[in-house]
C-alpha cells in the first residue's frame, strides 16, 4: 500500500535520512522504532509531504507521491498524526474533530462518524465544548486519533502516540491501536516504546541515524532481545 524506495532527506547540509526503504501492506500495523534522532519523525514528515526528499521515491496506493502537495496527500487518505499531537489549541474539541473531516463533503456521513468517534472516546463527547488546550495528556491523544479517524484514513501514521502518557494510558492507547487494525485501518506506527509497539505490530523497521538497520517480523524481533538492545539501547 505504501512503499518508500531509497528516500533521502537533507536539512541544509545535514543528511537526515540516508536512504530509507520500507513497505506497508494493507491491513497491517508496521512500526518504525529507533532511538531519539534516528529519523523516525522525519520519515513520516517526508511521507506526508511536509519535507521534500532529495532523492528516492514514495508510492502510496499505486501512485507516486513525489512532488505532491501535502494537502493532496492527506486528501488521498494518508493521515499523519504528528508528534506532540499538534491540536488546534484554540478550537473546541468538537471543532477539532470536524477539522479532521475538512476534506470531506458528505455531511451525513461526517455526523455519523462524529457519533462513532464519540462512542469510541466518550470523554471527547463530554468535553466537546472545551478548548483543546485545556485537555489532559490522555485526552489530547484521544482527540488526535479521533480527529484522524474523522478523515476516514486509508493509512494512519501515528507519531509517538505513547509519548508523555501515564503507563496505564499507554496500555489503553496500544489497545485502541489494535482495535483500529481489527477494524481494517492500516497503520504506520512510530514509537520509542519499542516493546509496546512490537507487541501490536505485524512488521517492524529499526532506524538508526537515518538508516534502516534491521527489518523483521515484529514477533521475532520482540523475542530477539540482544538485537533490540544493540540498536535501541535500554529502550
Amino acid at each position, binding site marked *: 500500500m505504501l512503499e518508500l524506495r531509497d528516500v533521502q532527506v537533507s536539512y541544509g547540509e545535514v543528511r537526515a535520512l540516508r536512504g530509507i526503504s520500507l513497505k506497508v501492506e494493507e491491513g497491517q500495523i508496521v512500526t518504525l522504532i529507533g532511538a531519539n534522532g534516528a529519523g523516525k519523525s522525519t520519515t513520516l514528515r517526508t511521507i506526508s509531504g511536509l519535507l521534500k526528499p532529495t532523492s528516492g521515491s514514495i508510492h502510496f496506493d499505486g501512485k507516486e507521491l513525489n512532488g505532491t502537495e501535502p*494537502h493532496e496527500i*492527506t486528501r488521498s487518505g494518508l493521515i499523519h498524526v504528528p508528534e506532540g499531537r*499538534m491540536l488546534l489549541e*484554540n478550537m473546541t474539541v468538537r471543532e477539532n474533530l470536524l477539522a479532521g473531516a475538512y*476534506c470531506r463533503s458528505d455531511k451525513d456521513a461526517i455526523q455519523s462518524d462524529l457519533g462513532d468517534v464519540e462512542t469510541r472516546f466518550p470523554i471527547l463527547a463530554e468535553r466537546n465544548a472545551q478548548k483543546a488546550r485545556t485537555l489532559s495528556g490522555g485526552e489530547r491523544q484521544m482527540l488526535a486519533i479521533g480527529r484522524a479517524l474523522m478523515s476516514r484514513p486509508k493509512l494512519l501514521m501515528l507519531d509517538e502516540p505513547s509519548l508523555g502518557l501515564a503507563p496505564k494510558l499507554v496500555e489503553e492507547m496500544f489497545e485502541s491501536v489494535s482495535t483500529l487494525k481489527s477494524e481494517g485501518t492500516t497503520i504506520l506506527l512510530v514509537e520509542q516504546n519499542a516493546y509496546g509497539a512490537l507487541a501490536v505490530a505485524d512488521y517492524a523497521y529499526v532506524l538508526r541515524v537515518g538508516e534502516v538497520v534491521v527489518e523483521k517480523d515484529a514477533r521475532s524481533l520482540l523475542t530477539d532481545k540482544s538485537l533490540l538492545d544493540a540498536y535501541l539501547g535500554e529502550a
Partner: protein
Amino acid sequence: MQFDEFFFIDLIQTGIDGAMLGSVYALMAIGFALIWGLLGILNLAHGQTVAFGMFAGLVSAGHLKLPIPISFACAVVTGVLVALLVERICYRPIRRAHELVPMIATLGFWITTEEILQKIYFHMYFKDFMPFPNPFTMTRFTFGEFVIRFDYVVTMSVAVVLVAALYFVIYRSRLGMALRMVAAGHDIAHLMGVNVLKTLRSAFMIAGAFGGAAGYLLGYVANMANPYAGSMATVKGLFTMILGGAGSIPGAIVGGIVLGFTELESAYLFSFAYRDAIAMGLLFLLLVFRPQGLFGTRVEDKI
C-alpha cells in the same frame, strides 16, 4: 484643557469622536492582523490597498459619478487586486525565507506603488489632494449636548457589518475553518488537508478587501483623497494591530478604538504637540508590560 462647565461634556464628546475615528483605524488594522496572524510577517504594503482603494473610490464616485454602493464595491475590489499582487510578488516566491525578507519586499512594493500612484494622480489631476465625494459631510445628529457626525456613523456601521461578515466567514464557513487551521500552524493545516497556499491567498484577498474599504471610508470622512494615504495607513494600522494584540482580530478592533480614543483624549487633556508621543509611549509601555497586546491572551492566540 480648562476646568469649566464644559469640561465633562467635552471629555465625553471627545471620547465619542475618538472611538468613531478609531473604527477607521480598526479597519486598517484588520488586514495587518490577518496577515500577521496567518503568516507571521509584517505586510508593509498593506497600506497600498488603502491608497488604491481610496483612489478607486475617487475615480468611480468622483469622476464617473457612480452611486456610492457601487463605488464602494470598486474600492473593495481594487483593494483585493492590490493584495493579490502583493501576495503574488512579495509573498509567494519568498514564503520560505526569513520573515524579514517578505517585509523588505513589501517595503519595496510600498515605495514603488506610492510613487506610481502619485504619478497617476499627478497626470490625471495635476494635484495630489483631490476632493472625495461625501454628500453627507455636514450632516450631524444631535443628542442634547452631544453630536455625532453622520459620516462617522456610516463608517462605524460599515465597519461593524464588515467585521460581522468576517466573523461569519471565520466561524461558519469552510474557508474560515481553513483559515483557523492555518493560523494554528502551516504544518498542521497541511496535515488536515488544507491547501495552505490557496487559503493564504484568500487571506490576502480578505485583507485587501478590508484595506480597500478602509481607503474608501478614510477618503469619505476626511473629504479628500491623496496618494500618500497608504503610508499613513501602514503606520497607524501597524500601531493599532500591536496595541490590540498582534494577529488578533478582536484586538485590532479594540486597538483601533483605543488608539482613536487615546489620540483625541490626550490632545484634549494633555498636549497637542506631544499627542503622538503620548500614544506611542503608552504603546511602548504596553508592549513591555503586556507584550500580547490588550486583547491577545497568549502570543499564539491568533484570529
